[in-house]
C-alpha cells in the first residue's frame, strides 16, 4: 500500500462491568465512532443470559488499519466499570497496555477487591473518578460509562466531535436532555483523559482511505444476513423467535413491509419451514431463521423440500447445545444436523460464511442457489458470527441475480407438464401456480416425472440419482467462493482446514506461526454440503499435517472431511462457549510442526 501511516493502528479495547453499568452501551458508542472514522472493526460482546441483574458483561472492540479476522488474545486497554468482574481479566492486558478503573469507589473496598492491587508490573494504571465526573456533569452517577468512553478518547487523542456525532445518533429520538447529559459526561471524561500523560507508544494512527464504489457500514452478522435478504429481494419470511437468530427476523420485520415484502411470525418452527416451502412452491423468494432446537424441528419438512424440489432458504445461528443448552454462548455443534439431519437420502446445500461480509454474500446467493437447484439451502452461522460487529464494505451495485430459475415452456397440446422431468443437467424446468396448463401436484412421496406417486425400483433409483447429481453441480455456481486457501503456497508443514466463524482465529494463528518460521496455510470451506472435495484434496496434498479446529466436542467437520475424503486430519475441539482462543490454535500448530515427519507418512 502506498501511504501506510507511521502508527499502524491495532488497538483492542475491552469494557468490563456488570449488566447495570452500561458496559455494552459504552462499547457500542466506542465501536460506532471508530467505524465512522473509517477504521476496520471487529467487536464481540459477552453478556449473561439474564436480561437484568449483575452478571458480567464484556464488550471488546479491535480497531485496526488493515483488515484482521478475529479479536486478539490480548487487549491493549481494559476499562473496568466493576472491579469484581474485571479483576479476573487483568491478565489479558498486554505489557504497557492500559488498565483504567474507578479510583474513588462508592463504598469501602475490602482487601483485594480494588483493581489497583491486581495490576501486573508492566501494565499502566489509570485511576479515574468516573462517578465523581458523572455527578459533576449530570448530577447523577448513571453516566459513569460515558465518562469512561470520554476518558479513553481523550487519553488517545481521538477526535471529540466524532464521538459527539455518534452519541447524538445513538440517542436520536430521545428527549434532547438525554443527548446533552451524555455529551456533558463525555466531555468531562475527555478533558480528564486529554490532560493525562499517555505512556504507551501504541495508539491510534490515521484510519485507512476507503473506495468510492463501496459504502462502509458497521454491522453484525445477523444484520448482514438481513441486508443480504433485502438485496436479493426477499418476498416472504416466516419465523419463530429464538436466540441468537431473532434479530434477523426483527430487522426484516421492519424493513420488508416497506419494500412490499411480507413477514409472519408463525406458531412454531415446523410451521415456519412448512410455510416457506408453500411460498417457495409459488415462486416466492422465501426464508426463515432459527437456531439448533428449531432446526431439529424443521428436519422433516426440509426433507419434503428436497424430494418435492422446492427452493427455500433457512438461516441457522448455532448456540451451545444439546437441547436448550447454552442459549447465549457460541458453538459450532449443529453441523451434523444441518448437513445430515433428515429422514432418508436427502442431501441439501449448506453454506457457512466465515465473517460478517460473508454473511451478506451467502444470504443473498442462497436465494439464487435455492432457485437454480430447486432445493432447500441452509446458511449456517453461530452466535459469535451473528452478534459480532465488523466494518463491512458493501458494493453500491446489487451483486445478486434476481431470477435464477430454469423455467418450463408450456407443453404442447395433449402433453402433460412434467414437474420432475429427467434432464441432462438433472434440473427439471419449473412452473408455478397461476401459469396456465402447467398444473401439477408436488409431493413427499417418491414419484415419476409427472409427480405421480411411484415406488418402482428403477424410478426411486433414477429420482435419487437426479436429486443428488443436480446438487453436485452447485459447487461450480458462479460468484460463490466455496473454499479458499490463504498463507504459504506449495508444500507446507501444517495446513489448517476450517469452517464458519472459527476461520478468523485460524487465519490469525496462521499469520503468527508463519512469522515464527513455520510454513503454514489455512483453508476456509464455505460450502459444507456438497463438499468441494477436489479443492480440499489438493490442499491436503500440500500439507504434511492438517489441523481442523472447531467449536464442538466431537469434531463434526473433521469427521465429515475424513468420511468423505478418507484421509486423516488432526482435531482441535473446544466447547467453552466462547470463540476459540488464537493461542490454542498456535500452540497446536507448533506441536504438530515440531513432530517428526512420521505423521506425514500416516497422512499419505
Amino acid at each position, binding site marked *: 500500500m502506498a501511504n501506510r501511516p507511521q502508527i499502524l493502528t491495532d488497538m483492542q479495547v475491552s469494557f468490563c462491568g456488570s449488566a447495570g453499568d452500561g458496559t455494552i452501551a459504552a462499547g457500542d458508542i466506542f465501536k460506532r465512532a471508530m467505524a465512522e472514522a473509517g477504521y476496520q472493526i471487529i467487536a464481540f460482546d459477552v453478556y449473561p443470559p439474564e436480561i437484568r441483574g449483575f452478571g458480567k458483561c464484556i464488550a471488546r472492540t479491535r480497531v485496526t488499519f488493515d483488515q484482521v479476522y478475529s479479536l486478539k488474545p490480548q487487549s491493549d486497554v481494559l476499562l473496568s466499570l466493576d472491579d469484581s468482574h474485571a479483576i479476573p481479566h487483568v491478565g489479558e492486558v498486554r505489557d504497557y497496555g492500559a488498565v483504567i478503573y474507578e479510583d474513588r469507589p462508592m463504598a469501602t473496598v475490602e482487601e483485594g477487591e480494588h483493581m489497583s492491587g491486581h495490576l501486573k508490573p508492566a501494565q499502566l494504571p489509570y485511576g479515574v473518578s468516573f462517578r465523581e465526573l458523572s455527578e459533576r456533569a449530570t448530577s447523577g452517577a448513571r453516566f459513569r460509562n460515558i465518562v469512561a468512553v470520554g476518558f479513553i478518547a481523550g487519553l488517545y487523542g481521538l477526535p471529540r466531535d466524532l464521538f459527539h456525532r455518534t452519541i447524538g445518533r445513538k440517542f436520536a429520538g430521545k428527549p434532547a436532555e438525554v443527548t446533552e447529559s451524555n455529551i456533558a459526561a463525555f466531555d468531562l471524561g475527555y478533558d480528564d483523559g486529554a490532560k493525562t500523560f499517555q505512556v504507551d507508544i501504541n495508539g491510534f494512527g490515521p484510519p485507512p482511505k476507503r473506495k468510492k464504489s463501496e459504502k462502509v457500514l458497521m454491522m453484525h452478522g445477523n444484520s448482514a444476513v438481513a441486508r443480504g435478504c433485502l438485496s436479493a429481494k426477499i418476498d416472504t419470511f416466516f419465523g419463530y423467535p429464538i436466540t441468537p437468530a431473532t434479530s434477523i427476523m426483527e430487522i426484516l420485520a421492519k424493513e420488508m413491509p416497506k419494500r412490499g415484502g411480507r413477514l409472519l411470525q408463525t406458531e412454531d418452527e415446523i410451521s415456519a419451514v412448512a410455510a416457506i416451502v408453500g411460498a417457495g*412452491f*409459488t415462486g416466492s423468494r422465501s426464508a426463515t431463521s432459527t437456531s439448533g432446537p428449531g432446526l431439529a424441528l424443521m428436519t422433516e419438512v426440509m426433507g419434503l423440500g428436497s424430494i418435492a424440489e422446492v427452493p427455500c432458504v433457512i438461516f441457522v445461528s448455532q448456540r451451545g447445545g444439546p437441547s436448550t443448552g447454552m442459549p447465549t454462548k457460541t458453538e459450532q455443534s449443529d453441523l451434523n444436523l444441518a448437513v445430515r439431519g433428515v429422514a432418508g437420502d436427502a442431501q441439501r446445500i449448506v453454506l457457512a460464511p466465515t465473517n460478517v461480509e460473508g454473511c451478506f454474500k451467502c444470504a443473498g446467493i442462497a436465494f439464487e442457489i435455492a432457485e437454480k437447484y430447486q432445493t432447500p439451502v441452509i446458511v449456517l452461522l453461530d452466535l459469535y458470527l451473528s452478534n459480532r460487529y465488523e466494518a463491512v464494505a458493501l458494493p453500491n451495485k446489487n451483486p445478486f441475480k434476481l431470477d435464477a430459475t430454469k423455467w418450463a415452456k408450456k407443453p404442447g397440446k395433449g402433453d402433460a407438464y412434467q414437474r420432475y422431468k429427467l434432464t441432462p443437467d438433472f434440473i427439471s424446468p419449473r412452473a408455478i401456480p397461476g401459469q396456465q396448463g402447467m398444473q401439477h401436484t*408436488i409431493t413427499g412421496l417418491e414419484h415419476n416425472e409427472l409427480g405421480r406417486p411411484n415406488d418402482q425400483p428403477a424410478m426411486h433409483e433414477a429420482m435419487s440419482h437426479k436429486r443428488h447429481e443436480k446438487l453436485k453441480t452447485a459447487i461450480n455456481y458462479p460468484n460463490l467462493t466455496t473454499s479458499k486457501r490463504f498463507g504459504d503456497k506449495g508444500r507446507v508443514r501444517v495446513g489448517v482446514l476450517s469452517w464458519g466463524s472459527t476461520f478468523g482465529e485460524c487465519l490469525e494463528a496462521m499469520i503468527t506461526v508463519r512469522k515464527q518460521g513455520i510454513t503454514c496455510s489455512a483453508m476456509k470451506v464455505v460450502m459444507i454440503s456438497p463438499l468441494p472435495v477436489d479443492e480440499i484434496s489438493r490442499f491436503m496434498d500440500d500439507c504434511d499435517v492438517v489441523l481442523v479446529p472447531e467449536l464442538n466436542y466431537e469434531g463434526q467437520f473433521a469427521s465429515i472431511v475424513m468420511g468423505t475424503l478418507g484421509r486423516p486430519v488432526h482435531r482441535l475441539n473446544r466447547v467453552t462457549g466462547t470463540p476459540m482462543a488464537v493461542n490454542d490454535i498456535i500452540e497446536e500448530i507448533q506441536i504438530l510442526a515440531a513432530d517428526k515427519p512420521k505423521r506425514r507418512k500416516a497422512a499419505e
Partner: protein
Amino acid sequence: MTNIGAPVYLEEKLEEISRSGRLDYRSKSLPTWCPGCGYFSIVESVTAALNRLEIDPCETTVVSGIGCASRFPFFVNTYGVHSLHGRALPVATGIKVAKEDQTVIVVGGDGDAFAIGGAHIPHAARRNIDITYILFDNGIYGLTKGQASPTSVLGFKTGTSPFGNQDRPLNPLMMLLSHGASWVGQAYAGNPGHLSEMICQAIAHRGFSYLHVLSPCVTFDKTTKTYKNLGMMVRGLPDDHDQSDVMAAMHEAQKTEQPALGLFYTENRPTLGDGLNEISRRSQAGS
C-alpha cells in the same frame, strides 16, 4: 330416487359431463380409495364447486397432509401440494401469503388435523387466513390401517386400542368456533348434494372457512361412524338458527349425539392478507 322410466345412455351422460366443464378440474388419475369410502364425494363436490364458481384450475392450489383423505390433490387438475402428516395448514399459509390471488383449499383427515397437526389450527383460524379447510372426519386412521384417532368414540376397539379407546373424543366444531374461525359448517358424505352446496359456500367465503365432513371409513370402522349409524344421527340445524350468533353455534355444536348439518357460524372480518397489507401501508407511511 332416480326416475326408472327414461333410459340413460352412457355416451350421452359422458357428453353432458364433459360439456359441463367439470372434467377440466379432474386429473387423469383415478381415486385410489376403497369402494364406498366417503372420500369419493370430496372430488365430486370440490370440482363441481370450482366449476360453479368459475375459478380457473391454474388459479387454484389444493394442499393436503398425509392420510387417505390427503391423496385428494392427485385426483384434481389444479396445482397441488401433497405435503406432510399434519402440515397442510402451514404450507397453505405460505402459499396464500406469497400469492394472495390463488384460491387455496386444504383437505385432510381427523388425525392429520387434530393429532399431529393440532398446533396449527388455532392460528390459521385466529389469523383468518383466506383459505378453505375441508376436514374429513372418519374417526379413525385410515391410511395406517385402522388405529384410534382424536375423534374416535369412547370404547372404540382398534389396532392400537384393542380393549377399547379410553380417550374422550374432541369436539372439532367447538374448537374451531372458539379459535375464531370466521365460517364454520358441517356436512355429511352420505348427503352429497348438501356437501356440494356447503363446499361451494365455504370456498366463496372470504376468510378462514372450516367445513367438517362426517365421512365413514367403510374398511376399518364397521361399528361406530358407519353410513347406517350416521344416517340415523344427522339432522338439520334449527330453522331459526342465527348464523351470526357464536353462542347459538356452540350450543348446537354441543349436541354431538345428533350432529347438525349446515352453516353454524359466519362473520366478516379482515383476513390475514388485509392485515399484512395494512402493515405494509403503515410501514411505508413511516408510522
